[in-house]
């Protein structure tokens, strides 16, 4: 697993120095093709181009200032104050104010926020909680908490796509989102003049477009990375960015934890890795990847069908339903898991994508980077779980992970990278820690 991660890192680092050695040119339009919903939270592709967070994570996971320039905590991390960067404006020209940030944060998480209250105090925002929030600066770098304009200057509800980021939305026609460079971006104007994102384009068609020069950046799903390498595509691949996990309802037919443990033992991660995902990513039985914690190997990932049978014993379960998140290989993976579980004596039916209230859900959970404790909290929140407060030590993290996993409500299966392929005219394509492409840093070889 470490070797695989090292290869991923190598690919990412090769992309890093290979591009920025000669200075980038300004101008031109980057043409991007994607298959899914561009606005999908938290990691829809245009989101990080249009919006900024209060904080950001650099490539080694360190929290850096973004729209907030400094922050401090009090009362045992129960009260945080973030001072906003002065002179920043939204794309419509209105200034970034603490009131606007408060409105955006309040809209971002509704009832499932890590805090109890957020309010504006002069040029700062103050976030308070009943429990300690040691990871708050890191959490605020996540895609869920990017700052958008909620109310315009005349009090009307904004269209939800006005941010402070390097590109601003200028139109959506015939399935193409068009973004223009934000000349006044606080991080500096992006190199490209514009980005065009064609949505709902099948990956196969994206690759054809790339081949005939009609696309500059296209998606490479993890299960097709090998194929992309065989076709000698230029690929930028992230380190593990998505956790494929089986979420098990702890009520109804699977209220018995022994049954859930039997399900966990029956899943064949190796088959998912080898067959469905074509040996990409890494097999895992832990929530956080080995490269982040160093102790992932302590969680056994082997299938044990005999033990699964023993644990299920004679317990009869009604037919179980299994649904899967959207995505190329997810349905195939769900079918495979259903087969595994039938071998352990469970009666499982795969149901359609988006089915609510299924007993089992195959989920793709984003790993947004940061310190391990922050990454664990963000991951559990994205799974709809209440994360424990964890000290910033390997021991505390390991204990928290083990205690959570012992509940057998979320079974980690694979860590998958995100990857994009680029045309020869694209320089400096790098990926954010969540695996989305940083198109603001991209320049075009043939730009004027």
């Amino acid at each position, binding site marked *: 697993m470490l070797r695989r991660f090292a290869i991923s890192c190598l690919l990412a680092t090769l992309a890093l120095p290979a591009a920025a*050695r000669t200075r980038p040119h300004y101008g031109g339009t980057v043409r991007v093709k994607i298959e899914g919903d561009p606005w999908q939270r938290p990691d829809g592709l245009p989101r990080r181009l249009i919006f900024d967070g209060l904080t950001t994570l650099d*490539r080694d996971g360190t929290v850096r200032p973004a729209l907030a320039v400094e922050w401090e905590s009090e009362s045992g991390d129960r009260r945080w104050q973030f001072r906003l960067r002065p002179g920043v404006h939204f794309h419509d020209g209105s200034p970034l104010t603490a009131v606007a940030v408060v409105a955006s944060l309040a809209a971002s998480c509704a009832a499932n926020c890590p805090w109890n209250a957020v309010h504006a105090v002069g040029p700062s925002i103050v976030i308070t909680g009943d429990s300690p929030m040691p990871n708050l600066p890191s959490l605020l770098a996540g895609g869920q908490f990017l700052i958008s304009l909620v109310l315009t200057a005349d009090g009307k509800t904004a269209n939800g796509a006005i941010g402070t980021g390097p590109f601003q939305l200028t139109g959506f026609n015939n399935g193409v989102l068009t973004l223009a460079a934000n000349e006044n971006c606080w991080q500096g104007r992006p190199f490209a003049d514009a980005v065009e994102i064609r949505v709902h384009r099948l990956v196969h068609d994206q690759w054809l477009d790339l081949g005939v020069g009609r696309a500059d950046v296209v998606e490479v799903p993890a299960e097709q990375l090998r194929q992309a390498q065989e076709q000698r595509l230029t690929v930028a691949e992230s380190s593990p960015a998505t956790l494929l996990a089986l979420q098990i309802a702890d009520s109804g037919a699977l209220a018995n934890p022994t049954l859930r443990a039997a399900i966990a033992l029956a899943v064949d991660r190796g088959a998912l890795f080898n067959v469905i995902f074509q040996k990409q990513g890494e097999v895992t039985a832990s929530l956080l990847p080995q490269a982040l914690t160093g102790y992932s190997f302590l969680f056994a990932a082997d299938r044990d069908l005999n033990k699964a049978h023993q644990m299920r014993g004679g317990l009869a379960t009604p037919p179980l339903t299994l649904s899967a998140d959207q995505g190329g290989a997810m349905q195939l993976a769900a079918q495979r898991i259903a087969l595994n579980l039938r071998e352990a004596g469970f009666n499982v039916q795969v149901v359609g994508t988006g089915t609510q209230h299924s007993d089992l859900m195959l989920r793709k959970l984003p790993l947004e980077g940061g310190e391990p404790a922050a990454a664990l909290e963000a991951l559990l929140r994205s799974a709809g779980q209440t994360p424990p407060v964890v000290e910033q030590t390997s021991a505390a993290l390991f204990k928290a992970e083990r205690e959570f996993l012992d509940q057998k409500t979320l079974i980690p299966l694979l860590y998958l990278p995100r990857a994009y392929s680029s045309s020869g005219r694209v320089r400096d394509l790098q990926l954010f820690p969540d695996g989305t492409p940083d198109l603001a840093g991209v320049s075009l070889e043939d730009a004027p």
Partner: protein
Amino acid sequence: MAMTLIRLLISPETKIHRWRSYLPVGLICLLAASTATAQAPAQWEQPVVTLTEEIVGILGPGQARLTIRNVSSVPTDEIPAIRHRLEDDLKARGVVVSGAESANLIRVTLSERAAEGLWVAEVVEGNQTQVVMVSVPLKRPQQTQASAGLMLRRQVIFVSHAPVLAALETPGGLVAIEPEQIVIYVHTADEWREQKRISIGQKRPLPRDPRAIAFTTANGQGFESFLAGLQCTGTYTIADTESGWTVHCKESDDPWTIAPGTEVQPTTSTQEDVIVYPIKAFYNASRNYFTGVLVPSLGVDLPPFYSTAFLPRPGGGTALLTNGIDGKVQLVENGALKPVAGTRDWGSDFATLTSGCGAGTQIIASGSGEAAIDSLRAYALPALEAVPASPPLAVDGTVTALWTPPDGKSVIAVVRTIANEYEVDRVTALCN
């Protein structure tokens, strides 16, 4: 050596044990073992001692099997020494490493995560497994460069997490120009200590590929720096402020001083005297290049360029070398603009180095991006074709700035490393 100690019982149920001090025993063992395993790399000794203490704290005296697995960047040839040291330490504390007959097992995994090593010992007694962990600082390997012809050497002067656009060495100190701040450092006992941090007061955003230059003022008592749309001056007065430095910045579209005092060859045949000027160049503050307009004019229209350097010519006089944003390297010589060949492997940045080798002065150019690893390489320019004068000197990331300090005997490079740190390197040459 900072370490984190962890003890966990993971089977059949999880509980945390209290950390107990074994310091006296540890010291004795450390002294004993330091003579027994002198060949073990010193950096592993303390982690081994600490891990041993933890293992013994769980197992107590007795026998146990020991396995070691390495999934980290610890070199394989160092594993036997680590094992030997572990066995010795365990034995000194009453745990004898035995063969397969023992029911107890110590399973040590040398692991690591992004920032540090993590050594994990699983202590198996019957059906119960307890885990201890020790955080281990990782040592970055030093890079060396093979010699062939003129050899470049690189010495890291300074490392920063923040972007460094330019830097200037001062007596006993260093001035780092960052995108939003100027930071004054003093050198104390093998480390840089931040002495003063001054906000530049940037009113408008810097471009995405920000650049800056800095140079010592003529009286040697200060510095001048240019950033996009800004000009800063720093003066050093012993009796002045706490640090002695006073820095002022102002918005400015004035041309940047690219050569504080340069002898310029006449551009027309009617001029006979060599002119000494500070050469300035207008910078496009919303982009990352110079416009091509010089003050004073050299008598030719230059295209927009990324870099320039003044270069002594074999026949006498000085010529200006420019690297256009179109990738063409050209020489301004005798009032004419002449293309330079042999620069296909050059990046956008270069500077001159007065090495005393060969013709005396070489051009140090960054790599073009064709190779996987960025590099610096010396070139001679006897005519209008650049000739490699040294093997490439690999750097740990991307060269983001390159300039010649006042004495001309070295070149200063800023390298953004793979770890996203900014290294300020001094590059010198050895003649062969």
